[in-house]
């Protein structure tokens, strides 16, 4: 694999040349500060730009062109990392050797027609605006159909209602109803013209060709991403554990515990915490929580953990009968105490590290994971695969115990289902 950074007068392009994959990808990453009241606008804009453009004013025409380009795929989405909002525009396409002579030129031309020539001034704008608005409205209204998703949002609300994860990441109906064309144009200009930006190209390509073509179309040279830390600011968290219960009309109850992990240092946040998490819950049926909750006590089928390092939150999600909630809390507390006291073996530690190292190896076989590895290396000084593997191998039992002491339970939340059987369809 050959990595290069091409910095010229027009823009900075990172190229990763590899023969490993049959497809290639160009990805442009724009970075701005996250603002909660803008999330609806951001999502609206990328949905609209994915749907149509000035050159392809209907989704049908755009899809037809993608099919003509040998099933090329575009993916425009927003990703929040802590207090930063990344707007990511990417195009995945087949290796040109399988296609025709000018295929790569056509792919890049198409990509830039989507990014640089949006539909705002086209007479078909209003129709497409309404379609996206209605689609987003459906999505926002349907979001809480998933009880696990709802339970996580509600539990985070009780943790700290000011944090992004306490709200829908899709946006709000109120804002959706008030968005105007000028709002979108203003946001578009902010992203394309004023944002910090990095461009990535990966695949088995003669990189001079796409670099030249990208440079000729895109000028964002002065705006490199130089903000490397992305932590979300939080209100002070209460010392007591908050316990809440809410009702929903679901078949199965969902229990969530939320932990504050604010006191971890960089290495702990990026590495030690993942090994802790693997031994504690995410490492499968031999992890502590699976052992206690499922295998030994048959309380549940599934236990899930979500670690959001930029937000300093760990959430544990269990689908179970609410009558077993107290038993569940007792067993989770027992498991965490054991982690603090070092009641896990060197063998368990080594197995967890091996599991994480295997997942890194799996990542090397994926074009998306490989590209994202380089992307986060640039955006937040993240380590590349080989460095990550060395650092994971170095983690000791004492380091895990130290991290366990810094994981503070703050919320116990249960979303109760319907036991009257009315929902049993």
């Amino acid at each position, binding site marked *: 694999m050959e990595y290069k950074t091409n910095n010229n007068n027009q823009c900075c392009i990172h190229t990763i040349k590899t*023969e*490993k*994959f*049959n*497809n290639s990808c160009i990805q442009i990453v724009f970075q701005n500060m996250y603002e909660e009241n803008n999330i609806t606008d951001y999502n609206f804009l990328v949905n609209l730009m994915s749907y149509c453009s000035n050159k392809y004013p*209907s*989704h*049908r025409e755009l*899809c*037809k062109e993608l*099919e*003509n380009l*040998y*099933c090329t795929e575009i993916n425009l989405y927003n990703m929040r990392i802590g207090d930063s909002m990344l707007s990511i525009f990417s195009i995945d396409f*087949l*290796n040109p050797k*399988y296609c025709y002579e000018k295929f790569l030129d056509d792919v890049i031309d198409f990509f830039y027609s989507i990014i640089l020539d949006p539909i705002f001034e086209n007479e078909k704008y209003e129709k497409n605006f309404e*379609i996206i608005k*209605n*689609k987003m409205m*459906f999505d926002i*209204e*349907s979001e809480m*159909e*998933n009880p*696990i998703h709802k339970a996580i949002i509600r539990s985070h609300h009780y943790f700290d209602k000011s944090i992004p994860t306490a709200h829908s990441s899709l946006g709000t109906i109120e804002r959706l109803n008030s968005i105007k064309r000028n709002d979108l144009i203003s946001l578009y200009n902010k992203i394309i013209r004023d944002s910090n930006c990095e461009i990535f190209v990966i695949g088995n390509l003669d990189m001079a060709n796409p670099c030249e073509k990208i440079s000729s179309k895109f000028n964002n040279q002065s705006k490199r991403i130089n903000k490397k830390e992305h932590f979300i600011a939080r209100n002070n968290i209460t010392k007591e554990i908050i316990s809440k219960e809410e009702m929903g*009309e*679901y*078949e*199965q109850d969902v229990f969530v515990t939320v932990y504050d992990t604010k006191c971890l240092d960089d290495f702990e946040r990026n590495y030690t915490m993942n090994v802790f998490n693997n031994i504690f819950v995410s490492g*499968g*049926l*031999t992890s502590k929580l699976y052992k206690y909750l*499922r*295998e030994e006590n*048959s*309380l*549940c*089928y*599934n236990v899930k953990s979500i670690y959001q390092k930029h937000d300093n939150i760990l959430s544990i999600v269990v*689908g*179970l009968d609410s009558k077993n909630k107290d038993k569940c809390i007792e067993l989770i507390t027992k498991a965490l105490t054991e982690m603090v006291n070092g009641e896990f073996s060197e*063998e368990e530690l080594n*197995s967890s*590290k*091996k*599991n994480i*190292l*295997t*997942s890194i*190896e*799996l990542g*090397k*076989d994926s*074009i998306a994971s490989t590209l994202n590895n380089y992307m986060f290396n640039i955006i937040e000084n993240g380590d590349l695969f080989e460095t990550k593997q060395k650092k994971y191998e170095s983690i000791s039992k004492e380091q895990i115990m130290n991290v366990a002491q810094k994981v503070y339970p703050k919320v116990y939340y249960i979303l109760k*289902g*319907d036991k009257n059987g009315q*929902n*049993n*369809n």
Partner: protein
Amino acid sequence: MDKIIIREIEKEILHEKLDNGLSVYMLKNEKVNNFYITLTCRYGSIDNEFEIDNKKIKVPYGIAHFLEHINFNEEKGVTAHDYFTKLGSFYNAFTTFDFTTYEVMSSTYFEENLSHLISYVSNFYLTDELVEKEKNIICEEIKMGKNNPGNKLFFNSKKALLKNDKRKYLITGEIKDVLSTTRQDLKKVFDYFYQPENMFLVITGNFEPNVALDIIKKTYSKISFQNKKRPIPIREKETMSVPKKIETIYTNIELPKIKISFKMKRSIFEKFDDDTLQIYIDAILHNNFGSTSIFKENLMENNLISFISSSCDVSHNLIIISIIFESKSKDIDEICKLIFDNLMNMKINNEDIKRYGRINISSLINSYDDIEYVNTDIVDQLIRNKKINDNYFGMFNNLSNEEANEVLSKLDFSNKSVFYMLPKKESK
């Protein structure tokens, strides 16, 4: 070893049938770091009734899935989880209507992973205590599935459409089925169906095929199987009558979801093999209901739907075509009528069929990068066709507009069921 050659991408799938009846398929990819191994038993949720020596045997629904859970137990207090966790491997299992697959994926310890996968799946260890313990776990899994609106739509619509076909039942079975399962039921199913001649092994990724074959043979040489007769599954033939032409449930969702399903006889399309027929029907549906269709564009532009998709399932005696949509419209029945009219007036031309071929060739080329995807595809082909198709590229390159229109002309939409899944608040 036999070779199945995929010329267009210079790949070859190696095949060998062992003395014990097990078939092994191997596809090496030197570009990747990892390997993915699956061991599949041709036993799934639909076969809870079977015949052996003229004697009919019936076991509870969901038993294939229950057995999949329980099979991880190796001996007292020891499970396959313990073993694979020590190696750092990713492992799992899943049950479908037609088969059960056990899988392991890693980049190291190839011999240990392969050998242990075979050993633990092939050896049966079970106590009454383990059965009772697993029941509660599976009951929670069933409840988790019922929380999922997609699952509800899938299985309830099948119940409305299918009369005899057991694909209308939950793969897990219902709670009452799980609670009634005994150790004896599980052992019976294991003994009859988990025989090497009823199973196959597929390995993809970076490994040495000759080394793999030696490991497989060595491992199986240490396992003895009872010489059991092959049971004959009892599968009642599906009729064309539809149990419920219209079915409505009210449940905890925000937006109505509607599924229109049709069933038709496979025998109408005798001229075409399953793969070819599947491709042509998928192409027709894609052209008339997909993102490049004028029909979908009109529905979206008029704010009648937020989502629509189509699918087709070709099996040995039955074809099921389904259209699913989501809508907030007050007149859902009008949308159903529009969909039905579109079905009756579907079209496909030469340009459409050629474009469809091109996008699928592109997907096929990309898919060979993904060792998990290609392994799953091999398993699907072996279950469906009992062999591997070495000519997908040729088929997509040679799609014919005449044949597509011949298929189109024979599609029979007279056996229909419409399933409405509506928000609870609408029932008040």
